[in-house]
């Protein structure tokens, strides 16, 4: 089996993550879709590290994980504070800026 199968799997996961962000309304599920996209990118990076025989790709995937952890903290804090004021976790209800 060729290594490109990993790349196809990563693309598929990325596309499913994109569709989740576009289709779901629950802010937490949308956020999990973003996480899925980040994970798919990580799989791509690890596979390319192996193809090129260079550890730089793995290090980049490591940095993506750290940034994703920071992003999750801030994102979930935003979701919680919106839920406190609007009593809803649906992305449709965040329309305060709409005149």
């Amino acid at each position, binding site marked *: *089996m*060729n*290594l490109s199968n990993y*790349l*196809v799997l990563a*693309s*598929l*996961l*990325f*596309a*499913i*993550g*994109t*569709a*989740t962000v*576009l*289709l*779901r*309304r*629950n802010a*937490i*599920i949308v*956020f*999990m879709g973003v*996480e899925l996209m980040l*994970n798919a990118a*990580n799989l791509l990076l*690890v*596979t390319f590290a*192996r*193809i*090129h*025989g*260079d*550890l*730089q790709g*793995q*290090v980049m*995937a*490591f*940095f993506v*994980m*750290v*940034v*994703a*952890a*920071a*992003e*999750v*903290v*801030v994102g*979930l*804090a935003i*979701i*919680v*504070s919106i*839920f406190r004021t609007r009593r809803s*976790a*649906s992305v*449709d209800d965040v329309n305060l800026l709409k005149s």
Partner: protein
Amino acid sequence: MTQLSVILSLPAALTSGGNISAGETALFWVLAPLMVFGALGLLFARKAVHAALGIVLVMISLAFLYTAQEAPFLGVVQVVVYTGAVMMLFLFVLMLVGVDNSDSLVETLKGQRWIGAILGVGTAAVLIGVIRTATLDQAKGLTSANADSNPVGVARVIFGQDIFAFEVVGVLLITAALGALVLTHRQRLVPRVGQKERADARIAAGGGLAPLAAPGVYARSNALDTPALDPEGRPIEESVPRVLRIRGQRRSATEVQAQIGGTAAVDPAQIEEGSQP
């Protein structure tokens, strides 16, 4: 130490033709459908908890694939950071926000569902098309880069040429922690109501200081529905729980007395009639 080195050297290297070994092929074909299944669970699950479980499945499978792909360090980090920390955080927030807070099925944007589905399928088609048509170099594998075990090799890159990025990421993490503190901080609009304030309010409203008396305990009746008797033999109405009083399930002391055939210091029937407002 030897066990650790065995675990770290477990992932098989590439075969001479740049292909992966039979064991890894089998692992891939077992895990890949499971991962796609978990990801589709995220897309289609009605309940947010099921979606979260699907993502956990994907993330743990990814850890397996990383380990198989000569990246055991990233495999461990994947389990610790993603499934251990990130997904637990997600589940905490899910419980905080309300598990049954499900999606609304009202379309606010017309045709969003179809456009979103088309865009998702289109993304998949474009990405897979690019990968299928691209000519990749023959895979080199990481055998030489991982000569001193994978964590050592990764550490050389992180603490060598990428040390500045590493420090910036540390600053980013601290900023994110502070940002979460600021975002979830709630400003107090009304003064805090503590134990002292509650007690003061109760006294001001004319309540008693002591707790309510416990329900009556008699020789043959030890139940919530029978009032206790005060030192003079009067029944204490407040000792029966409020719910039983409202439902009319209270038994009077007279009934109990008749049942047990005892005598009270004062005739309860007399007092009870007198005490009723």
